[in-house]
């Protein structure tokens, strides 16, 4: 493997969170490697791991790159890890979807769309770091404005918000 590619692979492996192209360029400044070259290395690495069919894959997440285990192995890895992660309730997921698609959004709008008070799921999502308060709306009562976090992208394996299917795709089919 060429040295730049090996270094980039090592950096991504050692990073605590998805590593961006910009950060890689910054770290490797002395090697005079530009964005384009880094992007090419990443593409080659992604393909190489895909082809290896080993235990993990290189994925583009939250604007950066991260190694993640192959989804097919989930059952074995879950067996190794103690305690399962807390699942999402339907209320939390619906609320999260509304915040994700409608951000910046205030609670009243979430309530209206779900037809029921969203106080509890909003609090749960805040505690789990999936949404955050962006500020307060300049209307009477100064309600808080919510938006999703970087962690939301990481947990749901999204490159960015644009990767979410458009709401229209769900609207048409009345089933």
């Amino acid at each position, binding site marked *: 493997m060429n040295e730049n590619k090996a270094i980039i692979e090592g950096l991504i492996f050692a990073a605590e969170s998805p590593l961006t192209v910009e950060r890689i360029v910054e770290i490797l400044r002395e090697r005079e490697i530009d964005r384009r070259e880094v992007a090419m290395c990443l593409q080659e690495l992604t393909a190489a791991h895909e082809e290896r069919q080993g235990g993990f894959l290189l994925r583009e997440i939250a604007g950066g790159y991260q190694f993640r*285990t192959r989804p097919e192995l989930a059952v074995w890895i*879950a067996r190794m890890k103690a305690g399962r*992660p807390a699942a999402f309730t339907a209320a939390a997921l*619906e609320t999260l979807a509304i915040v994700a698609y409608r951000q910046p959004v205030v609670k009243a709008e979430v309530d209206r*769309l779900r037809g029921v008070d969203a106080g509890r799921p909003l609090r749960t999502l805040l505690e789990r770091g999936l949404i955050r308060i962006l500020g307060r709306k300049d209307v009477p009562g100064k309600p808080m404005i919510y938006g999703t976090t970087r962690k939301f992208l990481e947990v749901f*394996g*999204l490159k960015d918000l644009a990767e979410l299917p458009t709401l229209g795709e*769900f609207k048409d089919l*009345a089933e």
Partner: protein
Amino acid sequence: MDYEVKLDVFEGPLDLLLHLIKKNELDIYDIPIALITRQYLEYLEALKALNLDLAGEYLVLAATLVHIKSKMLLPETTDEGEEEPDPRRELVEQLLEYQAFKKASQSLQTRELLDRDVFARGGAAVTEALPQATPQRVEVGLFELVDAFRQALGRLSPPERIEIDLDRTSLADRINAIMERLRRHRSLTFAELIEERPERRLIVHTFIALLELVRQRLIRIFQEGSFGTIRVFLAVEEEHE
């Protein structure tokens, strides 16, 4: 009707209404409002009979349904012959919108979730050290220096730390002394620079002298590893490496 479905299965009145529409295979754009209102109210009655707490929103929607039903019974046109908007329109729009978000949330659920379907590297990454090689040198900035300075002061005995030393030993002298020693030895640690007399005045002077030398780019400072020893080099000599 089947009442086995528990209330908490529904995420709210809209969800219950959608369920009824689907169960009866109704066209969401043309809901037979009388039928759906009846079923909805029956449902609420059943739930009340089971002593389940009903959120106020369920009753609000019940009232809305009854209101729509009554409007549907009125003649379709006004005196002027203009068409009245369909009284169901607003509710249908709300239902469609809710349904879209519900599907969006289900689609989220099917993604590869971190710590459920996929896992990131566990634990802290370990960087294998080169065997018997020289420690990795990281060029450091002002703050590592400040930190070293702080540590040096911290090592002094308490009385000495309180003492405010205003002896004006010239800074230039200290700078010259450091440069002199650096020309003789290739590099020196911060500790070595103050080892002769580890007292506050010398430490402070050494520190300020180093700051000045760094600023003028006469010396470079490296740290061995993240928390390693701070080592000072002559800038020029470093270039030859």
